[in-house]
């Protein structure tokens, strides 16, 4: 099989997209690649819903007075923005789309370990999503995405139980995806695919899956308790009945902190793949990145109370959690150093995926460093519940996770769709996203540090903050354009894009040894792996006609 850019035959080969037509062949599929596309449609839908709420929030904040919406409505806006973005976009995004599509192919398997459970995961996600939509359309929730007790259990009149049920169901979708990945990675690797030959994308998803498995059940049972408390006035979180609101926060954040690592780890996996490919180098410090992924997953469970420093918890416990929060930054920093070292003396190509990876590197670093600011108890008292926190987590979630997601979508788009996206437009979109993002969120660091509280719809007692808010809203508009562009040209490419060769980037990895798009069972014969990961030296060697160690029978 030649690594040159070959012109595929004009007659369309059978692949996973055209193997069977009809709605039911999609809705009852067990092919991990089709399920990935089902997820792609669903999460994109929710991304735009969450984005719509963000737009309304930013429009309200253009002026100091609360003049666009009422206070209660604003509370619902930021709550729904958070719930939709966290539970229905960020948590599934990379694992459910890119993970589902690529994990079996990267390890040389025909499918995930439990394909029917995979389909069930998608249906659970959809059911949760429909429930959440219904909840939003019939009044929504106004507690903030963190639905703290006792407001959520005793005082609010909004639809907590319905939203909670939606999240509960979507949570099971997440748990089952994680379960599928762990079993697949343990049991279905092709012969020769040892742990140290796995792409770091797989290590990242393995670590993510551990978090999904062990953390999500705790928030699930917390939701059960909140629902029970609302219905029966049990008193578990109600101070008047002897309960402790902080217990809710402990149980909630035990999941929700590791959840943020569910959102960022897959993105780190994507970035690792992209940086290796577009520097034409083996990743520097493979084992460091692999083990730091696991370390992030484990340490991530040790730090949750840093969300509660000013809530009334014991200051001695706060000291412990503050120290642990500093420790959790170390594995992430190790990754940043290793990515940088990979770039050094690499042959850098500035294709769109790489632009997103560069964006990730800078923005995730800023977001991560500001996390350290927040871990310091003294600073935390000053900036908790201000826009500093909002900016911190958006730098990581949007500047980090979403950039990684977009980079990954561009990188693997030829494999997924069999088409090339227009590179010029893609680079432009990446630039627009980067500029729009920074214009939106950097002013928020300043606003927070100067004291603007979050979740306020009216800041007319602090009119001096308007300038930065206007900048932020302007940035949000630019960012929105940047997000719409890929939607448009990805769709365009499905019809008018140039047909993609099997390996347009000449990248390493078993997934690039399948056809673009792949057949339903990925590999005609089970591949036998005899080479190390990221063997870019071999791929780029001038001796292209020498017998390659990578002869893998490809389904044609």
């Amino acid at each position, binding site marked *: 099989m030649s690594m040159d850019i070959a012109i595929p035959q004009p007659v369309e080969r059978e692949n996973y997209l055209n193997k069977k037509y009809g709605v039911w062949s999609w809705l009852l599929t067990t092919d991990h690649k089709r399920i990935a596309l089902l997820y792609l449609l669903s999460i994109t839908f929710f991304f735009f819903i969450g984005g719509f709420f963000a737009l309304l929030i930013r429009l309200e904040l253009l002026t100091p007075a609360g003049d666009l919406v009422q206070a209660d409505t604003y509370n619902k806006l930021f709550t729904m923005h958070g719930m939709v973005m966290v539970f229905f976009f960020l948590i599934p995004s990379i694992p459910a789309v890119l993970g589902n599509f690529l994990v079996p192919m990267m390890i040389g398997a025909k499918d995930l*370990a439990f394909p029917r459970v995979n389909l069930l995961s998608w249906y659970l996600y959809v059911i949760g999503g429909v429930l959440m939509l219904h909840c939003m359309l019939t009044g929504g929730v106004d507690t903030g995405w963190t639905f703290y007790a006792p407001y959520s259990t005793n005082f609010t009149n909004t639809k907590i139980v319905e939203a909670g049920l939606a999240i509960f169901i979507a949570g099971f979708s997440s748990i089952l995806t994680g379960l599928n990945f762990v*079993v697949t990675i343990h049991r279905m690797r092709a012969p020769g695919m040892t742990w140290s030959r796995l792409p770091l994308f797989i290590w990242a998803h393995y670590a993510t899956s551990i978090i999904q498995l*062990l953390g999500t*059940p705790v928030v699930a*049972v917390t939701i059960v308790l909140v629902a029970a408390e609302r219905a029966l006035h049990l008193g*578990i979180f109600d101070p008047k009945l002897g309960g*402790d609101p902080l217990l809710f926060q402990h*149980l909630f954040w035990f999941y929700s902190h590791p959840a943020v690592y569910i959102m960022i780890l897959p993105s780190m996996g994507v970035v690792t793949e992209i940086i290796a490919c577009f520097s034409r180098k083996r990743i520097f410090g493979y084992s460091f990145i692999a083990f730091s992924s696991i370390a992030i997953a484990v340490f991530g469970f040790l730090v949750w109370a840093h969300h509660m420093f000013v809530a009334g918890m014991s200051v001695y416990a706060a000291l412990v959690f503050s120290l642990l929060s500093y420790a959790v930054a170390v594995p992430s920093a190790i990754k940043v150093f290793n990515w940088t070292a990979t770039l050094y003396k690499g042959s850098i190509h500035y294709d769109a995926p790489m632009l997103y990876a560069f964006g990730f590197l800078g923005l995730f670093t800023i977001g991560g460093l500001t996390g350290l600011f927040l871990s310091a108890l003294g600073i935390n008292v000053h900036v908790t519940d201000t826009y500093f926190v909002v900016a911190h987590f958006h730098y990581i979630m949007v500047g980090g996770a979403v950039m990684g997601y977009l980079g990954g979508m561009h990188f693997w788009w030829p494999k997924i769709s069999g088409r090339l996206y227009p590179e010029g437009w893609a680079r432009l979109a990446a630039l627009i996203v980067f500029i729009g993002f920074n214009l939106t969120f950097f002013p928020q660091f300043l606003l927070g540090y100067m004291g603007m509280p979050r979740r306020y719809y009216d800041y007319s007692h602090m009119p001096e903050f308007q300038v930065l808010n206007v900048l932020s809203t302007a940035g949000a508009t630019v960012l929105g354009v940047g997000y719409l562009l890929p939607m448009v040209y990805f769709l365009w490419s499905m019809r008018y894009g140039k047909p993609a060769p099997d390996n347009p980037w000449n990248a390493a990895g078993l997934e690039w040894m399948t056809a673009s798009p792949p057949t339903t069972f990925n590999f005609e014969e089970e591949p036998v792996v005899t080479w190390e990961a990221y063997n870019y030296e071999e791929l780029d060697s001038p001796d292209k006609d020498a017998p390659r160690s990578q002869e893998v029978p490809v389904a044609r």
Partner: protein
Amino acid sequence: MPDSTAVLPQEEQRPELLHHFSDAEQQRDASSLGMWLFLATEVMFFGGLFCAYLVYRRWYFADFGAASKSIDATLGATNTAVLICSSLTVVLAVWAAQTARRTLLLLMLAITMLLGCAFLGIKAVEYKDKFEEHHVPGASFSFEHVPIPGHPDQYANPRHAQIFFSLYFVMTGLHALHMIIGLGIFSWLLSMAWKGRFTPEYHTPVEIGGLYWHFVDIVWIYLFPLLYLIDRHP
């Protein structure tokens, strides 16, 4: 292009082998690992409740003692024994499947289900008692003038006792729900066994169904002392 869904000769003899696995052993190992991981998630699911229990037991030990004393420890101990016996029948069922003893398998599966129903029956009696004594949290909850064990002159705080009962009902209720799901799983196993679908080579569903049942037993092994035996001295 060759049809990759063609059935190979050996697959016809083992229709349970799913096509994406390379052999039966891989499928069995995958199923087993999958169930163990699921049980790990269940540990964390119940774990949240145990955490809430731990916090409030420390805070309100005396009131919890009084509330705990008002539930019937003999029924609780009986239920514990029932579940232990059912665990035995489960493990014997797995052995029967491994050694192709169809009748024993059917018998053990059926007895397990009977014991499960007995457990739920005893639970129902307990719940009924609690309902009659107005110990169910909610509008009609009442726990007045109940002395604290060892301090007959002090009365338990009804609000704190309500927290105990809230945890009691949520934890045992969730446990009972898992029992009911377990009964569903075992009725499916029973029907599969009746149709003769299990052989010494293929009885994975019995094994992993058994794992689930043992887990539900283990949860009860902890619930019994924590809920029923907090403070029983006179």
